[in-house]
Every structure is written in structure tokens, then in C-alpha cells.
């Protein structure tokens, strides 16, 4: 049982061919096989959202997805959202608004927030709080996280209007 199977994925724009055991979770494929350790394992029970990545443009908890399920899909992790020197507006906003304390939840928060802003580009504070229900911050730094997302929403909207 459980010989490895081939999986083809595009991760942060790069095509990757890997062999995985069917029981391999997506988060372990990303972290252990592809070395993308920006995606964190927090609770490992699909509660905390630290492992949030995008599959075909939509957020998911990569600790609750089997790697075999994303065969043929496009994955974006925090490393693919922006790079040092060319940060995504959400990454900039978390930096500028002190949207992180220990930083453990931050990659998941930002990936969840990116999905939220895709679904709702101009959210109210209440909508941001509800939109991030699937992400926990053990530092309880929610106030500045919400502030960061609202700040990024404003900047993204300005960019889109100007584009």
C-alpha cells in the first residue's frame, strides 16, 4: 500500500514535479519537499489558519489538503506573494501597522487576507474581522491585523483606480 504517486504542481509560478505518498499533506509537500517554510503548521487541525495558502487562487488550509488533491493546480504561498524589496501591499501594510507580534500566524493571516480582498476589495472593519475567522493569533494582535488589512485594501484600490 501507499507507493508514491506523481504530482505536478505550479508553485509560485514554477512548475514542480514531485513524488508523494497519498497520505502526504500539502503543507508538508511545501515545507519539507519544496523547502518553502514560510507556510507554518500551527494547530494541525484546520482551526488556526497558519498553514493558509492559495490553490488556484483561493485560500485553503494546507494541513487539511492531501498533496495528491492539488495535482495540476497552481499554488501560491507567502513566498510567492511578494519578495524582499518588492513586497505585496498586504505585506507592506502588516509591516507599517505593526500587524505582527511573534509572526507565527502572519503568513496565514496575509494569505487569508489576500483571498478576503479578492472577494471583497473594499471591506468594512466588521467584514475584515469576519473574513479572518479562520485564522487565530495567539498574541491576540487582532487590532493591528485588522488595521493592516484595511490599510492594504485602501492602497490596493488606489493602485487599481490608477492602473
Amino acid at each position: 500500500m501507499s507507493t508514491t504517486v506523481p504530482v505536478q504542481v505550479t508553485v509560485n509560478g514554477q512548475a514542480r514535479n514531485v513524488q508523494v505518498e497519498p497520505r502526504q499533506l500539502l503543507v508538508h509537500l511545501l515545507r519539507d519537499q519544496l523547502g518553502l517554510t514560510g507556510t507554518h503548521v500551527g494547530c494541525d487541525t484546520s482551526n488556526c489558519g497558519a498553514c493558509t495558502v492559495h490553490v488556484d487562487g483561493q485560500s485553503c488550509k494546507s494541513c487539511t489538503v492531501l498533496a495528491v488533491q492539488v495535482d495540476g493546480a497552481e499554488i501560491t504561498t507567502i513566498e510567492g506573494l511578494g519578495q524582499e524589496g518588492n513586497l505585496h501591499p498586504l505585506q507592506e501594510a502588516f509591516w507599517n501597522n505593526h500587524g505582527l507580534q511573534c509572526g507565527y500566524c502572519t503568513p496565514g493571516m496575509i494569505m487569508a487576507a489576500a483571498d478576503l480582498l479578492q472577494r471583497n476589495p473594499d471591506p468594512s472593519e466588521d467584514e475584515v474581522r469576519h473574513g479572518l475567522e479562520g485564522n487565530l493569533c495567539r498574541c491576540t494582535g487582532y487590532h493591528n491585523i485588522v488595521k493592516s488589512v484595511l490599510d492594504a485594501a485602501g492602497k490596493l484600490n488606489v493602485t487599481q483606480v490608477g492602473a
Partner: protein
Amino acid sequence: MIPAAFDYTVPGSLDEAIDALRDGGEDAKLLAGGHSLVPLMKLRLAAPTLLVDLRRVPGLHGIERQNGSWRIGAMTRHAELQDRHDDLGVVAHAAAGIADQQVRNRGTIGGSLAHGDSASDLPTILLTLEGTVTAMGPDGAREIAAADLFQDYLTTSLDPLEIITEVRMPAMDGWGHGYQKFTRRAEDWAMVGVAAVVRKNDDGTVAEARIGLTNMGSTPLRATAAEEALVGQPLTAEAIAAAAGHAADGTNPPADRNASEDYKRHLACVLTGRALREAAGLA
């Protein structure tokens, strides 16, 4: 936490999927979005020997209006239901409150219904709207009414070789609707949830009311005493309060670590009042 080892196959058609289930024996399981099954596998509460992944089977997607009902492909994700609020009414309303966005982006309606968890929202919605599922098996397709689908805790009337292909939800044009649930944390399963749909006569009195209960028994339930109490009444706050007091009549909700039996009964009444007020536009 890593699931126990299993074999994996991705059939390209329903026939192949049914064959794979048959060949896999009693411990073969279907995989849709995996958001009920994979957590159980990680906890080793489920250890299937074979997963038959439905993601390449054609025809299991899409949301279309067909006569008086909505045909929803079994692999339709909760997020797709959530986004069709104007069309799907209480179905979209309940879907929008399932867990969190990440889970809604992966979980499917067929998977949720086949899992048959009475603490989940969509089984209650199917029962309340008196919808059906279509299941394909080795001998062809059959339609199963919601009331016949949910048999017991995590147990449905689906045959082990049957696959839900589509869900039919009556469109409920002109009905008011509400769904209310109470959770300890935003993304939790309902401690108790209540769906209410109401149709009024021209004179404003209630022609028909349907009230469904989440997590008040081993299957989703209808609050028939509260439904009956409302018929013929004007849809006022007073009439709603009187009917809501009967929401828990005849139920034996299982106590769990979140709520005692009495507390769940209390919640059922409170939430029925809220769901009915929402359905009546009084919320």
C-alpha cells in the same frame, strides 16, 4: 498528524469510480473536498484503505435552475453556494456560515451530505427545503428524499457503492428565510442551528412554515410542533415567540462538552425565534 497509509485512485468517470469502490472493498472511501474526511483521517478516527478521488469525474459541478428547483452538482464547493445569495436564499445563507472561508473554498455539498453529520448545516437545509439527492450506483441512478437520507449519527441510506451526483433544492420563490446558529468559536460546528422558511398568504398570515434543527439529535430534525403553531397566525413577534417555545418539543439532543441537553433545548427555542424573525424581515 499524518493519516494512516492508504491507496489512492483518480477515476475519470462515474462508472470507473463505482468500479474502484467495488474493487476497494468495505474500507474504500470517496474523497470530494476532504474537509470532513481528512481531519478524521489525521486523527486516525477513520483509516480507509483506498481513497477514490472524485475531482476528475465530469458532470458533478455547476448550479442551474431547472423548473422549480436548483440543481447543484455534488462537487460544488460551499464558497460557490455562498456567492449565489440572490439565487439560493437560505442555502447560500447557511453555506456562508460554514466553518471559515478556507474550509468553504474546499468543502463540497455532496461531501457534507454524504458525511451526514447532524451538527453540519447543509443536511438541515436539505431537510428543511425537502430537497433530494441523486445517487448513482451499479444499478443506475435513484433520487433520495432528505427525510430518507439521514438515518442516524453519521449514517445515511446511501449504499456503499453509491455516489451522490447532484442535489436538488426547491427554489422557494417568495418564501422568507433565516438561518441562525450558535457556536463557541466562529469556525466551530453549530452547538445548535435553526433554519426557517416561511410562506405567507395574501392576508399576511402564515400559509406554510418549515423549521429545521441542526445538532438536536442524531440526524437533522424538523421542529414540527413549532411549524404547526405558526400556520394561520400573523407573522408577528408575538406569534413567533409563541411558536418558538415549541422548537425543542419531542427532541432528545445529545449533551456534549459544549452544551447540556437542557441548554441545547433552550438554544433551539431562542434560535428558532431569531431565524423566524429573520425570515419575517423583523430581525
